[in-house]
């Protein structure tokens, strides 16, 4: 099993969610994060002076998936989070050893159905 983490633009969340939902991957967890990378910060003005905000608000998507579905999910995210501009974000895949659904106690693949 895998954990897919994607850092995407906040305004793309809606589209990514809908696309995943359509393909039956409706479950996910989302966190508000701030990131930096190649994208330059946002220039702001405070009382007449410019300053730069280094960290740009992004959204982190976390999806636990069976290993077979991982690639499909990654590519759905990529397609729908894509704008072509610097700052589109990244997708990471991590190994997962164990999953449990709290409500039923089901484990691993079963917990992900």
């Amino acid at each position, binding site marked *: 099993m895998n954990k897919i983490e994607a850092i995407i633009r*906040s*305004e793309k969340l809606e589209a990514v969610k809908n696309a995943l939902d359509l393909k039956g991957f409706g479950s996910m967890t989302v966190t*508000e994060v701030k990131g930096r990378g190649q994208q330059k910060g*946002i220039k*702001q*003005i405070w009382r007449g002076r410019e300053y730069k905000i280094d960290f740009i*608000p992004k959204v982190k998507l976390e999806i636990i998936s069976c290993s077979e579905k991982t690639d499909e999910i990654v590519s759905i995210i990529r397609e729908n989070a894509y704008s072509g501009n610097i700052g589109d974000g990244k997708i990471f895949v991590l190994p997962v050893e164990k999953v449990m659904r709290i409500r039923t106690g089901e484990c691993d693949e079963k917990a992900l159905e």
Partner: protein
Amino acid sequence: MKKQLLIIYLIVMLVSLISPASADNTLSNNDIARSINFTWLLIAAFLVFFMQVGFAMLGAGIIRVKNSLNFFTMVFMDFSLGALAFWSIGFALMFGGSNASIGLDLGNAYVGYSGFLLAGKTFDNYSAGFMLFQVMFAAATVSIVACAVVERLKFKAYLLYTVAVTAIIYPIYGHWIWGGGWLSQLGVKDFAGSGAVHAVGGFVALAGAYLLGPRIGKFDKDGKPNVIPGHDITYIVIGTFILIFGWFGFNAGSTLSATDLRISVIALNTFMAAAAGATSVCFLMVSRSGKADITMICNGALGGLVAITGPCAYVAPWAAVLIGMVGGIIFVKAYSFVEWKLKIDDPVGAIACHAANGIWGLLAVGIFADGSYQGVTGLIAGNTDQIYIQLIGAITAIVWAFGMGYIVFSLIDRITGLRVSPEEELQGLDICEHGICAYPEFSVNSKDTR
């Protein structure tokens, strides 16, 4: 109103002739009457000024956080820049020829042309207070428009349009109805401005929102309006409280004098209409969905207030309750109508609140005026004419405000452009137009913040 102004003015003049020695020892009755009238007018002006922060909070709360500071800035500048424009030009166009004060002597049925810059003989103690009160109304008219164009209008366009409304659009309709112009000669009655302020503001807002087009994402491809929730419901409620508070000055101050003891009936009517509007909407919403839906309740109160503004002096409390209740319901219906039928995007609901209820308020004079004040009568007092006269006032407001709004916004479009770019709209106008967001240290959750 013109007659009132004249009477007050004549009294003031008379007194200064009769009692030239009054200043140096004890005060004459008329000196004292003047001072109480000044006190009343000034405090009313302060209250109407305070409505601006009510507008700002209400509107900012109803929209998304990424544009909320922009709304605050719009309202702040509309009274600031608007004060300069009204002082230098608008006041003269509106009250020139009304003889409301010395020096306001040039003007005809269509426009005034004396009192520019409040300079020369126009400037005295009375005209200063009078202008202060009037300038607040001009600012309120602009703030109404802000509600409909927010979240996408360029800030520079807003500045231009502020000047247009406070220097021209509002004062000229104001001249017609309050400055001795043709509507007042016809007998149209609009005590504190259901028409002059709210309908005019509301229909300029309609033109603006129409020309600007909807916010990105407001309508589906098939034209279905989407829900775009606001960000601070407490500001909406606080703003409404402040607006009611200020509205006491708006309506009861419009006697321009405290020696006119009708002020207390006006204040009571104002309050009852607000209460009734809130209550009718509360019951409507609870019966529909089981939820109280506080933002609609607030707008119910405001709808009631807009509606009572015109008739407030001419009707009895029971009529105020009725006018307010209907005003609340009108808001709810008109709000859906604008979204679903007109397919116009009016983020704060200015059209439903001010345009629709402004017209309702004008007509309500023709229905409920009972003759107890200045002899104004409507249907319930057996006078079937007044309602037609009021209708003329209403139609004039619609045509003038929508027409001028359309022209002005089209012109501004050519000069600065009306609308920010889609990227800026997505990012929010706070960052792109003002360089900072409203709450720099807080995490914001909105779907479409960049």
